[in-house]
């Protein structure tokens, strides 16, 4: 068995594109081989800053012989048809065709073409240029006078099959058996004849760790090691690790040191500056958990001075970056958030929905309405909402958009926690004084603002937390806000966005969701459920709608609320499915039309528990039996069963007993439902199991007497109606 080794060597490939390209090249090659009828063994795919490579073992020397059959006309077909068949099959005489018999169709001609297998070299020499020419990169380019497109100029193509170069040429670039190593440490070129030799040569002579996984582990291990040696701890960052894995062929981890004075900046700022600008890992003190004045940089060279210059150079660049950040920090702190908020009037939120200042007004009004329902102080919620977006015009958020909200919270604390904040003890309780816990303790008074006017320290903290958390959750794994003021603002912000976009009919379609509306709706669902916030969604969605009409003078062509509600329902289903809830149970509860998300979840949970019990399972079986009979009879009659049960028509005790049981169960279930005790409601309905079983055991629904039959069918519908109090059992599987 033979082996194929292909390497496409280019100038530096963007780190973010390497892994996908590696997989695409592997897939294209194996697919091409499979289509050529070639079976293959193990496949290894590799990628790095300057190359993509695939090695495939277990290949034959040539593809299998194939015999291809082409069906022709019947033997007694007209001359014309037979001539056409010969032409199409490439035959000169009908004697070259075979005759087959078919019991139904009779005798017909078949042309058989024997296709001999092709040498693998030929197949590869045809396949690789096609793959290279048709390869998809997120962005590709031409260079020099060439027509070929690649992500950056393609410099070499190494293509070796069974130890020998497979000869071909793409746009003037000839294939060879040569690869190149690290620019400084071991450039080569190196001739190789197998994958094993390729990997070893690059590792030993070329100073290239060719496998991504190897480089990733190498970086991780070294990073932990250099930190441990200094008594520090690495702040792990998977995304950054993946990126730096794509930036170094020969990773060498170096611990750098910066001026500790920069630690007075918010840690988020320091870390983000390191990560986005410089691709450094942050380092923390394992005892305090706080950032240390160090960073981890991954170099691509074993420097002759042991990395001293690299550490110093990187520290100098980081200082310049953090100097900039400190400039923004000082400048922003001195600008009251209220002042910043004024500038929001010059920035469009969305053309049809006004400026961000307009949005802020709407969110403030909505947050005020929502506040009492989530246990928050209305004044605080409104104030927090008014300041929540102010940091969008701050220097720091301009530099680091990811810090929106986070910076606003810092500025609110810095500006609001001045010396003359009224201590909570001296205030007559507008709100509780519990310490909500903030990220920074207290700041010097830097710029008097209205923010703290009449506020307690706890109030300022709540406002700061609400500003910091109101964008949350930003993804399925992000935490939701839990402080009531933050909940009010976070919900108001998202509901405003959703109702607004529904109003102008910019809903997500298919995979397109440019305004992240699915995320916003899922965020609402999570905030509500994880905080057990009780809201009637239909009513709540009407509030932002009214605000849009009165404040934005937005005209709603159609009422979007029902559609938006079903959008929420889909997110809730997704959420519950992710939590492991049964799909059919969710549908069974949704069919009730409940719009309180917390109650929906409780109902689903109670239903699931109920169906686990023997009573539940049996009652479901009884329900199914009743439903099947009803369905069959309604179909026979061509009309739905209607009307109330007539107790005077009962002919058997079991009918009477079931009827009484249903009446009792319904009244008890209704009382339990009113108290939101779904377990008790289920238990009440579970009492029906015996009477239902007894009914089916001894009563013939399809009685000869039409009156009896009709009454018994009505009795069956009353079982259905009774159970519909907790779920639509017809949607339950089993």
């Amino acid at each position, binding site marked *: 068995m033979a082996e194929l080794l292909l390497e496409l060597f280019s*100038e*530096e490939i*963007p*780190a*973010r594109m390497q892994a996908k390209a590696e997989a695409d090249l592997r897939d294209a090659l194996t697919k091409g081989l499979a289509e050529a009828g070639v079976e293959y063994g193990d496949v290894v795919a590799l990628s790095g*800053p300057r190359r993509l490579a695939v090695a495939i073992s277990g290949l034959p020397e040539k593809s299998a012989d194939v015999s291809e059959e082409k069906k022709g006309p019947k033997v007694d077909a007209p001359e014309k048809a037979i001539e056409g068949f010969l032409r199409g099959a490439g035959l000169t005489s009908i004697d070259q065709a075979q005759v087959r018999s078919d019991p139904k169709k009779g005798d017909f001609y078949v042309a058989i073409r024997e296709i001999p297998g092709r040498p693998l070299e030929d197949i590869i020499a045809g396949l690789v240029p096609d793959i290279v020419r048709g390869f998809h990169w997120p*962005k*590709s*380019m*031409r*260079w*020099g*006078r060439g027509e070929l497109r690649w*992500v*950056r*100029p393609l*410099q070499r193509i190494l293509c070796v099959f069974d130890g020998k170069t497979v000869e071909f040429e793409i746009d003037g670039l000839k294939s060879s058996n040569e690869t190149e190593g690290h*620019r*400084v*440490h071991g*450039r*080569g*070129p190196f001739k190789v004849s197998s994958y094993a030799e390729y990997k070893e040569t690059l590792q030993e002579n070329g100073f290239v760790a060719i496998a991504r996984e190897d480089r990733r582990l190498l970086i991780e291990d070294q990073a932990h090691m250099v930190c441990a040696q200094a008594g520090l701890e690495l702040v792990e960052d998977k995304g950054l690790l993946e990126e730096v894995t794509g*930036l*170094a062929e020969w990773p060498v981890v170096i611990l750098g040191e910066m001026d500790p004075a920069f630690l007075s900046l918010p840690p988020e700022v320091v870390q983000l500056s390191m990560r986005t600008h*410089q691709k*450094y890992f942050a380092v923390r003190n394992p005892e305090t958990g706080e950032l240390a004045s160090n960073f981890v*940089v991954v*170099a*691509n*060279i074993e*420097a*002759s*001075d042991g990395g001293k*210059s*690299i550490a*110093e*150079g*990187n520290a*100098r*660049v*980081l200082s*310049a970056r953090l*100097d900039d950040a400190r400039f923004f920090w000082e400048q922003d702190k001195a600008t009251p958030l209220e002042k910043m908020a004024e500038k929001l009037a*010059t*920035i469009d939120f969305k053309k049809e929905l006004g400026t961000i200042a307009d949005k802020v007004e709407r969110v403030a009004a909505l947050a005020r309405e929502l506040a009492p329902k989530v246990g928050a102080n209305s004044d605080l919620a409104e104030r927090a909402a008014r300041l929540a977006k102010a940091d969008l015009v701050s220097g720091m958020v301009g530099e680091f958009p990811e810090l929106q909200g986070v910076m606003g919270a810092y500025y609110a604390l810095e500006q609001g926690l001045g010396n003359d904040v009224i201590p909570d003890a001296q205030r007559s309780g507008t709100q509780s004084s519990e310490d909500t816990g903030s990220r920074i303790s207290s700041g010097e008074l830097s710029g008097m603002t209205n923010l703290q006017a009449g506020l307690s320290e706890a109030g300022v903290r709540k406002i700061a937390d609400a500003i910091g958390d109101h964008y949350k959750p930003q993804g399925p794994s992000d935490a939701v806000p839990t402080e009531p003021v933050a909940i009010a603002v976070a919900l108001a912000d998202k509901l405003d966005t959703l109702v607004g976009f529904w109003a102008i009919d910019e809903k997500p379609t298919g995979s397109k969701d440019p305004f992240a509306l699915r995320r916003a709706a899922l965020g609402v669902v999570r905030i509500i459920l994880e905080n057990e916030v009780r809201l009637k969604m239909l009513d709540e969605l009407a509030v932002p709608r009214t605000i849009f009409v009165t404040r934005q003078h937005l005209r709603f062509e159609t009422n979007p609320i029902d559609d938006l509600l079903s959008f929420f329902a889909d997110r809730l289903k997704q959420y519950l499915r992710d939590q492991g809830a049964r799909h059919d149970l969710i549908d069974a509860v949704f069919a009730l039309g409940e719009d309180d998300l917390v109650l929906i979840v409780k109902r689903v949970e109670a239903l699931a528990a109920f169906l686990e019990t023997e009573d539940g399972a049996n009652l479901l079986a009884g329900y199914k039996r009743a439903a099947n009979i009803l369905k069959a009879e309604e179909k026979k009659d061509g009309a739905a069963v209607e009307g109330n049960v007539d107790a005077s028509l009962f002919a058997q005790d079991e009918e009477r007993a079931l009827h009484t049981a249903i009446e009792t169960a319904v009244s008890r279930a209704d009382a339990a439902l009113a108290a939101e005790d779904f377990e008790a409601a289920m238990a009440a309905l579970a009492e029906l199991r015996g009477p239902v079983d007894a009914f089916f055991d001894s009563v013939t629904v399809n009685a000869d007497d039409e009156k009896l039959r009709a009454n018994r069918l009505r009795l069956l519908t009353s079982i259905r109606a009774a159970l519909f109090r907790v779920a639509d059992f017809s949607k339950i599987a089993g």
Partner: protein
Amino acid sequence: MTAPVAREKPASFQDLILRLQAYWAAQGCAILQPYDMEVGAGTLHPATVLRALGPKDWRAAYVQPSRRPADARYGENPNRLGHYYQFQVILKPNPADLQDLYLNSLYEIGIDPMVHDIRFVEDDWENPTVGAWGLGWEVWCDGMEVSQYTYFQQVGGLDVFPVSGELTYGLERLAMYVFGVDNVYNLPFNDPASQTPLSYGDVFLQNEIEQSALNFELADVEMLQTWFSGCEKQSKTLRDAGKPLPAYDYALKASHVFNLIDARGAISPTERQAFIARVRDLARGAAELWAKQEEERAA
């Protein structure tokens, strides 16, 4: 191939520039002098942006003073300047070994590849004003961006063929790195051992201070608005008369005048967009006309 070796450090800022010039001259580049107009970036020199268009081969290198009024800091910021130098190289078509040529130029100015970590980090360049974009990298030396390296794909909204390789060295930043200086004004402009040693500050500090006053306080916005309209009108007349080179000059003038107005903070975001669109129309118009004429001349 043996491992590359760096030369000794240059003696001064100007020595660094002279070495780059000599190096690129040896690669067959025409060493041009700075363009005699205010530009915001070395790319905007017609020797790059216009020569990248059309079918003819071209190699040039030059220093270009760049003016960015909004970046001026009254000489108080050690890293930011309203007037600074870029060293610009364009090779059309790009030779296959352009990356090596570029790295050798770093070795030429004393950056030792055995000691420093040099990387090519994805950074695609785009200049909407002249309808240009290309793929390439920012080149990092120990984490510091020392150059921009681009393969032009479009200029003036037109696909280029052949493709040019373009290198931009931020000279002050590069020199600060080479000399280990934290404040740009402390860079040795000429040889510190010479009879009259001059620092970068001796040469440029006063200029930064006074130009900052112009940019942020004294620029006459009303007059500049009139100038802008005048430049726009002249550029269009020239374009209509089939003279893309001076039409492009007046587009550059308009662009700089706009930058001055912008630095004064005298325009709203909406107006700003409108100004940018007007400059873009002028620059693109001139570039398209130049490309068409070059094709005709080559035919």
